[in-house]
């Protein structure tokens, strides 16, 4: 069973809008339906809207895997609404936690850290390198997600064990750690290290104790005000 290039492009484009109408009540529900509509045949749309108008939330980049798999179920024609809903309930949670861990917690901060160091040292190369490298990986998942989701159907859930998730995360954890150490190169020899060390320790403490992020930004503001005044 093949997806077809024009249909694939429509789904990919619609998938970029998955967060547009994000709300606390239904989260990405309308975005999910919008992406399914882009790839669904006209006679499938009523059934899709009836079955999937409820809550939906997953990692935005990983949603393509679920969309591909759901469309496959409709194309095969053997759609049991309860089964499809159960699959989506399980898949959205699994892909969300994998995506959050891979992208938000590892890959993006590691790449931004590298970009910040490169930007200060080499100028425009930093931001450019980030935009290119990050979007190669991001778009790879959006594109492969649709294709693999459509090819594997409901078995797509097993792809979470693949190297594209585990190995990439491991590599970027190592890179992030290495560049954490390398951050010291941004300092200068004349810099006041008596300031740097206690402020760093204060913020490590705040983060480890899981203070709300708003309070951490207020603490940055306070430390900044004290430093400027003194």
């Amino acid at each position, binding site marked *: 069973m093949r997806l077809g290039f024009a249909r694939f492009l429509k789904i990919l484009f619609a998938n970029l809008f998955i967060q547009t*109408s994000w709300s606390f009540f239904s989260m990405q529900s309308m975005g999910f339906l919008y992406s399914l509509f882009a790839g669904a045949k006209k006679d499938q749309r009523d059934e899709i809207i009836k079955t999937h108008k409820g809550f939906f939330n997953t990692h935005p980049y990983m949603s393509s895997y679920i969309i591909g798999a759901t469309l496959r179920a409709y194309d095969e024609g053997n759609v049991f609404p309860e089964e499809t809903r159960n699959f989506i309930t399980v898949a959205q949670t699994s892909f969300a936690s994998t995506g959050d861990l891979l992208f938000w917690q590892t890959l*993006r901060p590691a790449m931004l850290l590298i970009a910040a160091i490169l930007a200060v040292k080499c100028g425009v190369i930093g931001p450019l390198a980030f*935009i290119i490298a990050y979007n190669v990986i991001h778009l790879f998942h959006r594109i492969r997600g649709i294709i693999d989701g459509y090819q594997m159907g409901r078995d797509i859930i097993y792809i979470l064990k693949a190297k594209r998730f585990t190995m990439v995360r491991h590599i970027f954890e190592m890179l992030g750690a290495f560049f*954490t150490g390398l951050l010291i190169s941004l300092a200068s020899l004349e810099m006041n290290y008596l300031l740097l060390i206690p402020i760093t320790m204060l913020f490590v403490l705040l983060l480890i104790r899981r203070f709300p992020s708003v309070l951490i930004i207020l603490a940055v503001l306070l430390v900044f005000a004290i430093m400027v005044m003194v």
Partner: protein
Amino acid sequence: MNFILLSVIGSVIILDKYAFGEFGISQPIIAGAIIGALFGDLQTGIFIGAMLQLIFLVGLPIGRDIPPDGQAAGVIGTGSYFLLRVANHAGHALCLALILALISAIIGGALETFVRRHNEKLYHLFMKKQKNLYLYHLFGFIPAFLRSFCLILPIFILANYITIPAQFPQLNKELLTIIGLSVGFANSIYLFLKKTTVVYIITGALCGLALLVF
């Protein structure tokens, strides 16, 4: 650069985070580079963007949690610095720009909660008229854009017209580096320090010291 046009550009940049694609162009380091290029001072834009990026490195939008708006901080920090610099000393401009960036990040987070609550109405409208899915879904662009525009425009108006008094504290690049570096260190230690990665952090620190000394 006209501050209204800059507000529109800034709001469009932030749409990347909240409404379309998440390509990463709204990250402070990229937004800083774009705004710096618009003002013809790429280097300063990148520097301010990089420092704000280090401050907002940990901002994990997991589930229902909405962290402070680092994207707005990037746009407002760099944009207001360039607007303030026209009529003020660079040290004063940098100091006020950083304050505005940090405050706007907190306000931006609160506004985002408001927008997401507003989007619930779109969902309820869709439930009543299910044929209008495209319309109600894409209508989400408008509150997302207006949210950023309403946050950025007043700050840019202020930055465009204000004359900072001489008694106002100044911020130099070294002090900003200390703040960016210490918060960035804390953020990345929080994210990447594990038993398995200690060796990489030490190796990186040794390489960093070598770069610093030589």
